Structures are given as structure tokens and as C-alpha cells.
């Protein structure tokens, strides 16, 4: 089965992770821009981060046969630093034009401060202007109220619900999200947010329509193989293959393809692993013989 992890922070992960993900069937990922565990103090740090998401990280993923897309935005955790907000939002507006950018995100609430309201509103306006979907982070604290408040803000701004993915849902927020008409993401984490058996229960109750699962793996305790592991749990629980395929492949593609920058037909053609491209310097293959899936001539040409 082909798998798509629609929310994973590969910048924080190792090449072992990439290799294990590809072996487990993950052939496409979306990396939302987020914080790096400690707040950045200069707007320029965001520019280098955005550049790495549309450049270096995309290339790194391709070396393992994984297609990499990203979402860009100013995350709520760093939205409360007035020194960086305006210049970072200018950068977001500029970098949203880049080719691999398939949504504005992850944006939303953390502490639900007035500053977060303002920055969320401005980025929603940008999404409408760029014709991009929106990927929403919901808060850990006061989650139900935060989810409702986000959905209300988006509705008032005139964003069609099919252009919105509300992420990090749980048993209590999922009905709210599905009622709103938005897409519903679920983060399968070791020991918090959501686990495999609970996710199986949600799918048994609600089916696969507009439902997605992701690992949100990052620099914290997290597991980049949660999408394949949850897929296995769904198979073991007897959930229909068609439903599983909808959740782990067709839904992420349908949602992010609304950006016009992800071609569903192209995604059906597996990207070859070309470790010939992984040699020296910063690249990952340090002296081992490269694995090449295809004739070199077919991969040497940038698209």
C-alpha cells in the first residue's frame, strides 16, 4: 500500500528515518513549517528555514524516493514575538509562491492571545489571495474551545471548509471538525495525542471520509513510522482496504492537490531511489556503494 504522511517535520529527522519510512511504504510527505523547539529571534532565521524546506530538505527526501511538499506560515508559538512578526509575514507571503508549497500552515492557536488572532487572520487572508489550502494546528490546552474558535474565524473569513485541514484531532474534537465540513487530521504519537488502537476506534465509528493520519514526527519524542504502524493496526482490525487507502493516500492527495502544485497522476509514479546523488560533503552516502534503482541517465536531469 502507498502511504502519504501529511504532517512530518523531516528537517529534524535522520537519514535512517528516511530509509525506514521508504521501506515501510511512505512515498510522499508534507512538512509544515513549525518552530524548532526554541523560538527564533531573527526574521532572517525564518528565511533560511523556508529555503531549506523548498530546497535542501526536498532534495534530501528525493534521495530516498520520497516526494516532499511543504506548507509555510508563522506558527502560533512564535506569533507572540512582536519583533519578528511583520518581516516574517512578508517572507511567508513571498515564499508561498514557490512550487513545492501546497498550503499555508501550520497556523492556528497556541495560547489564544490577541496577537495569535491577528496573525492567524492575516495568514488566512494570504491563503485566500494565493488560492492555497490552510493547515491548522489546534492547541494542546483548551483544545475544544480552540478548535471551535479556529473554525469560526475561518468561516467568518469566507474560507470554504474543503480548503481547511484541522489537525491533531481527538475523540472530542473530531465531531466538531467533521460537522464543520473541514478535513480532519490525527497525530499518532507515542504516549500522547492519539494512539493506534484509539485511531482504529475512530475509523470504525466515522469511516474514512475527510479523515487523515500523520506522525507529526519532529525533534521531540515521536515516531516517523506511525502512519505505517496505524495502517497495520487498521488492517489487523479488519477495516476495509478501500477505507484505509482513502485515509493514508487519497485524502492527503485530494486535500493538498487543491493548491494546484501537486499532480495526483505524477504521485502514482514512484520516485526512484537514487543514492548516486548522495555522495560527498553534506550528502549522506559516505563511501558506501550507492543504490541506484534506475539507469543514471534517467535521473541526472532536473525536472
Amino acid at each position, binding site marked *: 500500500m502507498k502511504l502519504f504522511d501529511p504532517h512530518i517535520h523531516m528537517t529534524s529527522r535522520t537519514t535512517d528515518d528516511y530509509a525506514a519510512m521508504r521501506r515501510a511504504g511512505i512515498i510522499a510527505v508534507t512538512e509544515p513549517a513549525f518552530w524548532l523547539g526554541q523560538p527564533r529571534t531573527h526574521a532572517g532565521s525564518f*528565511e533560511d528555514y523556508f*529555503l531549506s524546506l*523548498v*530546497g*535542501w530538505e*526536498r*532534495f534530501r527526501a528525493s534521495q530516498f524516493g520520497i516526494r516532499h511538499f511543504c506548507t509555510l506560515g508563522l506558527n502560533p508559538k512564535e506569533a507572540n514575538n512582536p519583533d519578528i512578526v511583520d518581516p516574517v509575514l512578508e517572507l511567508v507571503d*513571498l515564499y508561498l*509562491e*514557490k*512550487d*513545492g508549497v501546497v498550503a499555508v500552515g501550520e497556523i492556528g492557536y497556541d495560547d489564544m492571545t490577541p496577537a495569535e488572532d491577528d496573525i492567524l487572520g492575516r495568514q488566512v487572508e494570504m491563503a485566500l489571495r494565493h488560492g492555497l489550502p490552510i493547515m491548522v494546528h489546534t492547541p494542546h490546552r483548551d483544545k475544544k474551545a480552540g478548535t471551535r474558535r479556529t473554525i469560526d474565524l475561518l468561516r467568518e473569513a469566507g474560507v470554504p471548509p474543503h480548503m481547511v485541514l484541522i489537525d491533531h484531532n481527538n475523540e472530542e474534537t473530531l465531531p466538531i471538525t467533521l460537522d464543520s465540513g473541514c478535513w480532519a487530521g490525527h497525530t499518532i504519537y507515542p504516549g500522547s495525542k492519539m494512539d493506534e488502537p484509539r485511531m482504529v476506534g475512530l475509523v470504525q465509528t466515522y469511516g474514512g471520509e475527510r479523515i487523515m493520519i500523520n506522525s507529526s514526527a519532529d525533534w521531540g519524542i515521536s515516531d516517523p513510522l506511525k502512519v505505517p504502524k496505524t495502517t497495520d493496526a487498521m488492517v489487523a482490525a479488519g477495516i476495509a482496504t478501500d477505507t484505509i487507502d482513502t485515509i493514508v493516500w487519497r485524502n492527503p492527495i485530494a486535500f493538498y492537490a487543491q493548491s*494546484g*502544485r501537486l499532480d495526483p497522476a505524477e504521485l502514482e509514479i514512484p520516485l526512484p531511489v537514487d543514492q*548516486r*546523488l548522495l*555522495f*560527498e*560533503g*553534506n*550528502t549522506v552516502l559516505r*563511501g558506501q*556503494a*550507492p543504490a541506484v534503482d534506475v539507469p*543514471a541517465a534517467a535521473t*541526472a*536531469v*532536473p*525536472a
Partner: protein
Amino acid sequence: MSTRPAERRTQPILALLVAARDPDGAAWLEATVAAPALPGTPGFMRAFAAASRRLRGSPPPQGDELPALRALGIAVPERWSAQRLLRAALLVASVEATGEEAPARLTAAFRTSDSEERAVILQSLTLLPDPARFAPLAADACRSSVQPVFEAVAGDNRFPSAFFAEPIFNQMVLKAVFTGMPLARIVGLAERTTPALRRMAADFRSERRAAGRVVPADLDRLLDAPFPDGTTTP
């Protein structure tokens, strides 16, 4: 800075190839270059990025277009996409409107570009007026770890053999060997093969042999080819 009349023909030829593919794209290009934003400015970067969402599904250069593009300075136009033609047309118009600030401005544009945008800039250097002034930018691009960016400058490109100083050219050739880019893709390599380059290549081959590792076949070819004067590597 002088711009020869011949160079001014480049942009209209690219625009014609765009028009042959997509009249809407051509109209957008014409409107955009009527008052071109300078390279690296937000206006330019927006247009340069958005260009990739036009001419989707249009064919790459073909037929009579190939010799025409080679005559402009593109070494292997077969490897260009329709979007590259459109982006190059934007870039040429923008650089032609820039004057003496062009190297600084193009460097700024390069820094804020994604990988394919960087590749277009590098592949288009030989189309720009007075290309020699962009040598520092091209040399810096050789340091990229993103292989498609490195290959856009080192491979299928007349720029390095025409404008790189020997140490930079030699480093580029060695990096191509290291990263597995076929040396056949380096334009003008035979003419630029010097004793210094052979010495570097020979040292590398000897290191590889000492380590019991495979010696890339390209390296043997480089070392075993006679110099233009008929002598060979000792």
C-alpha cells in the same frame, strides 16, 4: 556595460517559443516584461516562481527549436522544459533592464530561489549580456549540496569552460566525479584539461585504489586521454 545587438535577440526568441506553446503564457510574459521588475526584488521573485504554473503539459524544445537555442548559447536544450523557457525569458528581460548592478541583483535572486529556480538561473547564464561578470555566482553554485543545482552549473552548460578560472574549474570536475555526474556532460572539458587537473584526478584515483574502493570509470577516461599536444599523464 555594453550589450551587443545580437544579445538583444535572445529574449524575443525565447518569447516566440513560449508563444508557440501557450498564447496565454505569452501574453502574461509580455505584460510582465513590459516593465520588468529587477532580479531579486519581490516583484521579480513572485513572477519567477509563478511562471512554473504556466505551460504545464507543454512540450520541451524540439525540432528546429533545438539548433536555434544552441545558437543562443544553451548547450543541451533537449534537457530544458517549457517552464524553463518561460523563466529564462523573464530572467533575460529582467537582467537586460538592470545594468551594472546585475551581478549583485542576480546573486540576491539566486539566494531566495528554490532548487529549480536556481537551476534555471545557472542554465541561463550564457544567455545574459556580458556573462563573465556572473562567474562568482556560478562558482558559488558549485558548492551546492543539492545535486540538481550543482549539475545545472557543471553539466550541459557552456559557462564553466568559458569563464571559470582554472582552480574553480578543476574543483568542479573533481566534484562531478565524486558525485557521479558523467564527465561527458561537462562542456569543453577536453580543452580545459590541464596538468593540474590530471594531477588532482590521479591523486584521487590513487586514494581510491589505496582504500580498495571502486575507481569511477570517468576518472580513468580523464586520465588516460592524451593532452592536445599528444602527451599523456605519467
